[in-house]
């Protein structure tokens, strides 16, 4: 049975698209045929992060309007042949999406794919609503600061009351917390909320902590999902997250400040 995962947050700039790209790649690398959809119509970014921006012919809105077939619009990833990207339209706005149209595309994708990752736009308006409406699982990406946590809480409320599963009284969406841009040393100084502080407010199942890392910016600039950078801390954090989501039991990392003596002395990368 295919599963639809929404990557959402409420707040912007917390790492939704980075996360969507990384986990979609991670799931495909594990042998699951995966599609990742950019719901941020008008502000598309996923194609850049995935490094396929120069191969975009048709987009999500074209498929909804019947101007292209799904197969024409899906772009196969250059690093992994089990991963496909459905880019957003840059020239339209979110009103071009309709619930019926999105539902139809997702139904069609479900026949062929194991996982469908929906990269939600920021906010709680139409685009974000449609991205989460059909979801089975939600990855709530949160930064360790109060406004991000509150926006995530608001989004969790919407997941619990406005989704298709909520409306049809089905089993609720499974919600997972991904704490991104985490810096243990700043937590220690009291400049950042700790994992426990965030969990105290959200009480969610923690899927993983992604450390603040230069590798994320480098990955974005080069158009390769950070999970492919296996040496980087953020890449490893996403690999852990995908493994945990698939049922593996891996201990949490990157929560404590565990820099070794020499790395402290010479500074870390």
């Amino acid at each position, binding site marked *: 049975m295919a599963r639809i995962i929404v990557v959402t947050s409420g707040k912007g700039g917390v790492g939704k698209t980075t996360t969507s790209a990384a986990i979609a790649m991670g799931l495909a690398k594990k042998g699951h045929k995966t599609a990742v959809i950019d719901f941020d119509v008008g502000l598309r970014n996923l194609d850049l992060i995935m490094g396929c921006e120069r191969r975009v012919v048709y987009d999500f809105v074209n498929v909804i309007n019947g101007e292209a077939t799904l197969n024409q619009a899906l772009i196969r990833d250059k690093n992994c042949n089990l991963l496909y990207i459905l880019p957003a339209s840059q020239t339209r706005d979110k009103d071009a999406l309709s619930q019926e149209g999105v539902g139809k595309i997702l139904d069609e994708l479900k026949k062929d794919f194991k996982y469908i990752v929906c990269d939600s736009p920021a906010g709680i308006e139409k685009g974000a609503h449609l991205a989460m409406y059909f979801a089975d699982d939600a990855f709530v990406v949160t930064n360790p600061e109060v406004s991000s946590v509150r926006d995530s809480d608001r989004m*969790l*409320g919407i997941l*619990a009351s406005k989704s298709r599963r909520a409306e049809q009284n089905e089993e609720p969406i499974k919600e997972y917390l991904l704490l991104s841009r985490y810096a243990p040393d700043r937590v220690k100084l009291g400049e950042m909320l700790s994992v426990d502080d965030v969990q105290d407010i959200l009480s969610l199942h923690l899927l993983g902590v992604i450390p603040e890392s230069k590798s994320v910016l480098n990955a974005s600039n080069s158009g390769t999902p950070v999970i492919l950078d296996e040496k980087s801390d953020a890449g490893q954090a996403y690999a852990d997250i995908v493994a945990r989501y698939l049922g593996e039991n891996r201990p949490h990392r990157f929560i404590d400040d565990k820099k070794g003596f020499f790395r402290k002395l010479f500074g870390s990368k």
Partner: protein
Amino acid sequence: MSTDSQKMPYTPPALEFKSSTFSVPVLVLSSDDLLIIEQQLQEKVDLAPEFFKNSPLVLDVQALNKQGYAIDIAALTELIRKIGLLPIGIRGGNAQQNRQALELLMPVYSIRSGGVTEETQKQKTVTPEPNTELDSDVTATTLITQPIRSGQRIYAKGDLVITAQVSAGAEIMAEGNIHVYNTLRGRALAGVQGNTDARIFCFDLQAELISIAGNYKVSEDLDESVRNKPVQIYLQDQALIIKDIVQHH
């Protein structure tokens, strides 16, 4: 005979009269100063804007008329509509006020059926008799086991029991008592229909606002000594009392 039935096919009745009882808030006025009424009504509405939005309302001017203040119904109705409530009737009005109401297409209710408001006001001295009025319609307790997230709103006609946390930015309201067996960070309003005997119980008080029958305190007014603790909140002489749930003797 068969031709008859063909000529006049059976049509099911298009309508039917049934008797039904509704619970509608009554606005008892004790001042004829429209400015003061507007200000105080707005304050009440601001406490629970979603709940009061387009809420029906019956105007009770009996007490006002007894004091010799005959308020202008047309002006009063206009003011109330402006605030977003919908007056659907009047009671206790004099002949002119009743005529005014009818001109505004508002029915005139007799005062006999509605001694309730006076009882509600006196309930402190009486045994919980007014509760029968509240309870007669719905006594059911609403139980919620999922977290109430920021932006969510819960309204319970009877008591409200929540076993999960209530987030900052959430709003929970009950006509009866509110029990939160977890952390209460949002807004909690008990006795929203005027039940001054309603109480709020919570396991960990961090609320943004607490209110009983319209008497409220915001977070800033909460004493540090009652924060982050299991407490109960009730009304005594129109003042909110916040106390440990466990009474130490």
